[in-house]
């Protein structure tokens, strides 16, 4: 065994899960709502790079005392990536995390917003 593998085995790897999301369109913005139970506000990382949006929520360690007697969920980080086909105004992205639910508002770029063009009569 090489020393490298020994180091790898000692590292604690946190499993990653895809959070369930609702996505809806408000016309002027796209809203993404993701369930991230166990994640606090400072554990959220949102990354937009050339049309690829990545949501990441890191769970806080702890809460693992005792012996697991019944398990339905595993604790791990939440990661999900989307490809954007709309032009998003990256500077205007707003994120809020409340009670383990991330709400992300992605404003569409001005030229893509549906616009109402007034028609003058006369």
């Amino acid at each position, binding site marked *: 065994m090489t020393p490298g593998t020994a180091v790898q085995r000692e590292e604690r790897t946190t499993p990653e899960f*895809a959070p369930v999301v609702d996505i809806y369109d408000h016309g002027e913005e796209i809203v993404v709502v993701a369930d991230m139970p166990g994640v*606090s506000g400072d554990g959220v990382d949102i990354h937009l790079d050339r049309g690829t949006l990545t949501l990441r929520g890191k769970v806080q360690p702890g809460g693992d005392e*005792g012996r697991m007697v019944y*398990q339905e969920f595993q604790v791990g980080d939440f990661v999900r990536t989307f490809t954007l*086909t*709309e032009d998003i105004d990256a500077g205007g992205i707003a994120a809020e995390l409340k*009670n*383990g639910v991330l709400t992300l508002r992605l404003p569409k770029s001005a030229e893509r917003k*549906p616009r109402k063009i007034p028609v003058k009569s006369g």
Partner: protein
Amino acid sequence: VEARGVVAFLKGGIMSLLPRRRGPEERGPLAGLQHEMNRLFEDFFSGGGPLRSLFTDGDTFLPAVDIRETNDKIVIDAELPGLNPQDVTIRVEGERLVLSGERRQEKKEQNESYARVERSYGRFERQLQLPPGVDPEKVDATFKNGVLTIEIAKKEEAKPKTIEVKVKS
């Protein structure tokens, strides 16, 4: 037309490579049965009758739970994203813990069209059998970041004891 844009917005990505946290239907035969029982129960009391479940998607919210045991307590973690403490009721009846509540859908805004709905809502009730020897008078619950943690103390007689063995020389 708007909705189509958002659907395309979801294409691709690494999401298919990651496992979902398991949903109620995937948690083994007993949990699935309980989910079905919960639904029948709801249908019965809402007057829809058992047939109604054939016509609804039945995707109601059911929190996932983990149960741990230490020397002096039982610890239950329930995933309740989006809920507030006042949305949840905890009852201990003998050696059974009943967790119930409702996950409400956020208020809908005008002019919105859904591109994807994976999250679920609705009333839920879960009954969990506790190991023998818990003290129903000593229950603590904390709610943090959408995770409810319930701690139930064990009765003195149920705690593991260390018996000192004197060795005669």
